[in-house]
C-alpha cells in the first residue's frame, strides 16, 4: 500500500473513534503488538534523541524500498511507531519524501497527543524523512 493509501485507511479507522479513550485504547493495543525489534540494533547509534521515553529506530533499504524497525519502552510510543510503519514501511524513498507529515495533525493525533514532541513522534518523523532524503540523493547521484 502506498503511503497516501495508508493514510486514507488510517483516517477511515480513526473516524470511528468517538473519544480520546477509544483512540488511545487502539494505539495502546497496536503498541502491544508491534513486531519485535532486532536486538542487535538496540544501541546508542540507533537511539532517537529528544524523547521522554527511549526510542530506537533502525532504517534500512531492501531492493528499492525503505524499511523500518523501531521500538520504545513506552507502549503509547510503540503504538505511534506502528502507525508510522503503516504509512512508511516498504515505501520508496521518493514516496516518503512526497508524503507531507501533516497527516499526524489531520488524524487528530497532534491534537490529542499534545505531548507529541516529548514522546518523540516529531523526532521519529524527522529521522524517517532524513533517511529517505539520504537514500534518494544517493539514487539520484548514481543515475546522473
Amino acid at each position, binding site marked *: 500500500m502506498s503511503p497516501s493509501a495508508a493514510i486514507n485507511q488510517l483516517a477511515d479507522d480513526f473516524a470511528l473513534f468517538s473519544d480520546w479513550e477509544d483512540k488511545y485504547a487502539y494505539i495502546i493495543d497496536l503498541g502491544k503488538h508491534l513486531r519485535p525489534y532486532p536486538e542487535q540494533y538496540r544501541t546508542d547509534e540507533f537511539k532517537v534523541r529528544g524523547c521522554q*521515553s527511549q526510542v530506537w529506530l533502525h532504517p534500512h533499504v531492501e531492493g528499492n524500498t525503505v524499511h523500518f524497525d523501531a521500538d520504545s519502552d*513506552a*507502549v*503509547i*510510543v510503540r503504538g505511534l511507531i506502528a502507525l508510522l510503519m503503516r504509512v512508511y514501511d516498504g515505501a520508496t524513498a521518493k514516496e516518503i519524501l512526497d508524503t507531507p507529515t501533516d497527516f499526524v495533525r489531520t488524524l487528530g493525533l497532534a491534537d490529542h497527543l499534545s505531548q507529541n514532541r516529548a514522546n518523540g513522534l516529531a523526532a521519529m518523523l524527522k529521522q524517517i524523512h532524513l533517511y529517505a532524503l539520504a537514500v534518494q540523493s544517493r539514487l539520484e547521484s548514481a543515475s546522473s
Partner: protein
Amino acid sequence: MTTTSTYDVHTVRAAFPILQRTVHGGKPLVYLDHAATAQKPQAVLDAIGHYYRTTNSNVHRGAHALSAEATAAFEDARAVIAGYVGAARNEEIVFTSGTTDGLNLLAATVLTSAQPGDEILLTEMEHHANIVPWQMVAQQRGLAIRVVPVRDDGTISVDDVASLLTERTKVFACAHVSNVLGTINPIAEWSALCQANGTRCIVDGAQAIQHCSVDVQALGCDAYVFSAHKLFGPTGFGVLWARYDFLDALPPYRGGGAMIDRVTFSGTTFNAIPMRFEAGTPHIEGAIGTAAAIRWLQEIDTTERIAHEDDLLRHTTAAMTAMDGLTILGTASHKVGIISFVVDGIHASDIGTLLDNMGIAIRAGHHCTQPLHQRFGIDASARASFALTSTREEADMFVEGLAKAIRMLR
C-alpha cells in the same frame, strides 16, 4: 488540617486566572506540575503590567523621574526579598536569572583558591543544576567530587554527611528540598557540621522556596539560591543570598556595565556587592514581580498553607500506596507535596500522556536528576506536585485518573 483552620483554598485559588482555564476541549485544568513552575497570581501580573505601563526605565542610570521611580521599585524589591528570607542586609541579595545562574556564579567564584585534590561534596539527590557547574570547576582545577548517598526512603543520614566531610572539603552543595523525593533536608544540622569543618555550605532552595518558610539565619548556611518562577513570580529571575563577608570576598563573575567602579583600558575596579554580580541591565520587572509574589504570599497564613499542602500530600499518598504495583519514590516523614512514582511494567511517559488527555498536568521523565534515578535503578518516573492552590477534589481526580490510566495500559 486542624478544625480551627481558616484556610480557604478556593479564595486563594481564585487569585490565579490560569487555574480557571480548561484544556483538551473543555476539561478543567488540574495543574499538578507546580514543582516545574508555579502559576502566577493576579497581583504579580498586575505589578508587571503596572511597571511597564507607568514606570519602565533603566535602573541606576538616567537622571530622570522614571529612572528614579524604577530604581526605587527595583531596590524596594531587594528589601522585600531580603526580608522574606531573613537576610541580615539588603546587599546580601544578588539578583540572578534563576537557581541555575546562581549556582553557576557560586561554582565559578567560590573555589578560585582551591588546590588540586580539594573536594566538593554533593548529595545523590541533586538536580543537574547543582551537579554540572561543580563538575565543570572540578575539571578545570583538578578537584574531586564526593557524593553523599540517598537511603531507600529518600533521606540522607547525617552521619554520612559527617563522615564525607574531610579536611579537604571546600564546599558542600545540597538541596534544601528534593525536586523528586520531596524530602526536606535538615540544612541547619548540615550547616553546623560544615561550619565546624571549615566548609562552605551552599543550598539549592529551588523547591523549598515555594513550600517552606525559609530563614537563612536559622538554616545557618553560607549561600542560598532560588528561582522566582517557583515562588509564583516571573520566569528568568532568581535570587542568590550569601552571607555578607563571604559574598564580599568573591571575585566578579561576569563583566559589563553596572558591575564596575571605574574602567580604563589599563584596568578596571569593581563595584561593591551586590552590583558587582549584576552586570548589564537587570530583569527589572522580574524583581518587581517577585516582590509582588512575596507580598501576596505574606497575606496568607504560613502555618495554615503548609498544613493544607501536607493534608493533600498525606491524603494522596494514602490512596496511591493502596494501588497495585505502584512505588512512591521518597517516603520521608518530613517532605513537601511532591509525589514521584513508578508503576511496574508501565512507562511514566504513558501515564503522563493519558493523564494529560484527562486535563491533568503532571511531569514524566528524569526531572533533571539522572544520578538519583540511576540510584533507584530506573530511567524515568512520573511526578505530581501540589501547591497551596491545590484542592482535595484535584487530588481525587488525579488518583482516579491514575487508576484509569493504569487500567488502560495494563
